[in-house]
């Protein structure tokens, strides 16, 4: 049996996470201790510094000789986790970077707080990416969620910001409860909170508790579907995206969604889609329901985006559609250990990270010059922004281009090819 107690030597594997914690505490303490007169912009730089250091440490952890696991598999540091952590950290760093200077304009009163709150949020995402246990998974999820609620509400005087945050917390709370309810059944069936243990328990006694397993799966699916904003669990996204300060919206769209996918991937890969359950009805249904979710998200997200005039809401719908695309590699063919699914998923996620943050950055610039976030604010951008056309042009060209390319490479190739292979395999 592995060491159940956290050894001091294990801490070296947690250095990226610890860096974030230390930075966040330091920034919080400084924010409290320093007099009001002192500008809080140091907070931003401190946050960025912490993120950069964490990125370096995470990069050092890449490609370990064998996956490191702490506390009896409840915390895993493997390449999947490390790469996702890099995505999360880079995304957070870019979001902090694009908030520089815009925070005060967006009538955010507690600027210092605003910046260092990104750190626990990113930490939550990292824990999610690494978790191998229901408890760590849930704690990470809630760390990310609760910080996100606060970040969305950061514009204290803005009704929209508050309203968005309230909607977010109500629906987020419900979804957390749903996830937990599902987890409680998984625990009940297996007597363990460890994902691998749950999996082996399921493989052993699936027929006895079929109903409970299905119940647990669908409850988890709904909860995770909510976190990644996949239709039909997407309804919160447009309102929250619209209400939140733009950088926070970008954070929700990229980091929060990416972390949600990380746990979905973990749970699917280790529990419901794993090799031990290969060929069972449960696995087929699980993958099928993910495919259905992907299809609904793509269709509904894109269709609703077509009729949208508010750019932030539009990007929210686009995020829903992209959640559909990201679901495809997870939904297709888990039954064989197929490494390309990791890479396709990560490839899309990285592309999604850059194109989305680019789009939101453009939105911020346009918002500043046109005073609103409607689509018409973009009209004539070419003529207005001729002097400094690089960023808007780049991003607005890159966005649809990369989207369509990824759409095709991801959804067509993996969806069709693997779905067909999958169905052939299951027919056999």
């Amino acid at each position, binding site marked *: 049996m592995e060491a159940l107690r956290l050894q001091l030597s294990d801490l070296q594997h947690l250095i990226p996470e610890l860096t974030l914690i230390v930075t966040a505490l330091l920034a919080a303490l400084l924010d409290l201790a320093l007099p009001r007169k002192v500008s809080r912009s140091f907070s931003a730089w401190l946050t960025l510094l912490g993120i950069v250091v964490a990125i370096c440490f995470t990069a050092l952890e890449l490609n370990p000789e064998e996956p490191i696991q702490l506390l009896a598999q409840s915390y895993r540091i493997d390449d999947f986790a490390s790469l996702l952590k890099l995505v999360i950290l880079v995304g957070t760093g870019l979001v902090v970077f694009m908030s520089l200077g815009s925070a005060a304009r967006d009538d955010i009163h507690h600027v210092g707080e605003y910046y260092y709150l990104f750190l626990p949020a990113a930490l939550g995402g990292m824990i999610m990416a690494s978790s191998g246990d229901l408890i760590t998974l849930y704690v990470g999820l809630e760390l990310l969620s609760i910080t996100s609620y606060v970040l969305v509400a950061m514009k204290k005087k803005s009704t929209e910001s508050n309203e968005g945050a309230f909607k977010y917390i*109500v629906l987020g709370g419900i979804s957390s409860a749903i996830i937990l309810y599902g987890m409680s059944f998984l625990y009940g069936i297996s007597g363990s909170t460890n994902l691998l243990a749950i999996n082996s328990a399921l493989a052993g006694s699936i027929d006895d508790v079929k109903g409970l397993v299905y119940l647990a799966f*669908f409850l988890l699916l709904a909860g995770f579907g909510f976190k990644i904003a996949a*239709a*039909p*669990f997407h*309804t919160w996204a447009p309102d929250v995206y619209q209400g939140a300060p733009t950088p926070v919206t970008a954070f929700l769209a990229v980091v929060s969604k990416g972390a949600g996918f990380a746990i979905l991937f973990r749970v699917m890969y280790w529990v419901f889609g794993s090799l031990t359950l290969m060929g069972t009805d449960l696995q087929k249904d699980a993958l099928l329901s993910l495919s259905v979710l992907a299809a609904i998200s793509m269709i509904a997200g*894109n269709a609703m985006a077509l009729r*949208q005039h508010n750019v932030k809401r539009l990007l929210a719908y686009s995020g829903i559609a992209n959640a559909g695309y990201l679901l495809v590699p997870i939904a297709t063919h888990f039954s064989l250990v197929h490494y390309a699914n990791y890479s396709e998923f990560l490839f899309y996620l990285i592309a999604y990270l850059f194109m989305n943050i680019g789009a939101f950055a453009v939105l911020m610039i346009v918002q500043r010059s046109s005073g609103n976030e409607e689509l018409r604010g973009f009209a004539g951008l070419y003529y207005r922004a001729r002097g400094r056309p690089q960023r808007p042009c780049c991003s607005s060209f890159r966005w649809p281009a990369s989207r369509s390319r990824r759409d095709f490479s991801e959804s067509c190739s993996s969806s069709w090819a693997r779905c067909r292979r999958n169905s052939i395999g299951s027919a056999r």
Partner: protein
Amino acid sequence: MANDFTSYAWLVPLFPLLAFLVLIAAGRQLREAGAYISIVAMLASFVLALLIFFERLGHTTDYTWNQLKWLTIGDFQLNMGFEVTNLNALMLVIVTLVSLLVNIYSKGYMHGDERVNVFFSYIQLFSFAMLGLVISVNVLELYIFWELVGVCSFLLVGFWYFKPEARAAAKKAFIVTRVGDVGLFLGMLLLFWYMPGHSLDFSAIHNAFSQGKIDPSIATWIAILVFVGAMGKSGQFPLHTWLPDAMEGPTPISALIHAATMVAAGVYLVARTMDIFQASPDAMLVVAYVGGFTAIFAATIGTAQNDIKRVLAYSTVSQLGYMMMALGLGAATAGIFHLFTHAFFKALLFLGAGSVIHAVHTQDIREMGGLAGKMKITAWTFAIGALALSGIVPLSGFWSKDAILSAAFEHNQLLFWVGLIAAFFTAFYMARLFFLVFAGKPRSDAHAHESPAPFTFPLVVLAVLAVIAGFVFTPFNGWLGHWLGDHAEAETANWTVMILSTLAGLLGIGLGYVMYGKNSVSRDIVAGNAPWLYTLVYRKYYIDELYDVVFVRGLRLIGKAFELFDIYIVDGIVRLCSAAVVGIGRLGLRLQNGQVQTYGLATLLGLLILALALAGRRFFHLG
């Protein structure tokens, strides 16, 4: 004998191609120099072609180089290359010579046109395509150049694109010849399918067909389809309509198209694939009858046209009919010989016509007259050309026409008489043309004067050739036939044919003289007594109108039907798709009412539906 020059035959088309590239790349900067580049390039080609020709004089074996691997499909490999046979060598000389003279002529004719370098570059491309076609080693290579020739004719006929007639004519030339090209393409596919080893090489075709390895019925199909291609390019009935309209292009181009390049391609194609035709008597008969009909059909139309170039154009169609008739009768040498002589005197006539047009600025022969005194060189050379075309002893046209007619006399009496009557009409309309243009009194006050040297030099050269070119193949001198490897030619003089054809020619000239030279017989004798006949001929037997009704309108009708399909069915599906997307979007947005509890309910319902639909079937055994 060595193949010193022959092995460099690929250079012949290359010179014009280089000139084309230079002109395209630096045309604007070159200004007047463009013409000289073209002339020099063409001269180089001509000299090389001449050297090859002389080198070939003693040869009977072909020189083939086909080492350029072009594509490999499975076991099948297609090589490109070039081939020089005696026929090819002769064609190279004809094409380069006429092209060279046309280049020199164009230097004067196109002087002052601001797109003169574009014009020359097109000519170079045209020559390149035709020369490449001539030395092609297989049918596919020929087809590529064949299409290139078509493109160039389109560009050149439509050179004055600002004239609507030129645009229409260019389109017509392209589309009508395309109809023929489809035939050639299908023939090529059939050939590819049935040839042993799928070889498309001419040498392989020769072997396969002369040894009877191909089923005769297949050979008939291939031959007829190939002939359809030749019909398109060589203006045989019923695909002749583009040729007279192509007169909208600059006159040197008319000369080039009608004498050496475009129309010669069809005759050359049939001569080159003669083995296929000889494997099928039916196909030969078709070729012969189409040729004979075209000969007399176009000749009659020529008698009623008033545009100097149109008369010549119909004369070309008619003469091409002769050539096809000869090929169809198995007298390949006679056909090629007529192509050879015709190239010179028809180029001469067109260039002469160009000189006249240049002087009087009109193409209507009713407004000309009395030009003989003012334009001596043009008049004399034109007269030589006209006499050669009419088949008067001892000019070149006489010998070549005589060769065809004697072949017809031996093999098919009907076609002989058709050819003879066509010869009479030919002589008649040439006489009409000559007397209306050069004799009598001027009918307009244009101050015509002789054209400058770039005009007259090619005229004189061509006139000399039109006189002497016939002596290479006379009943008393069968050298050409031997050289081209056609031993079946009759070498004995057929005096009946000679006398009859001379009589027909003289009769035609005489009638033309009394009607248009001396005016002793009323010109309107036909128009007055049988107006329907005159109108029928004048309107070119209403072929264009017929095509308009049958094909153009018919196709439009089909197009309309498809348009309706497009509007209601295809567009309907598209609209349905967009409506579906909009509907989904609208439905989804209706959900977004801002009420957080509605959102929660939607999530819950979504979960329930998903779970019931996917898991329910496991538990309730519904499907």
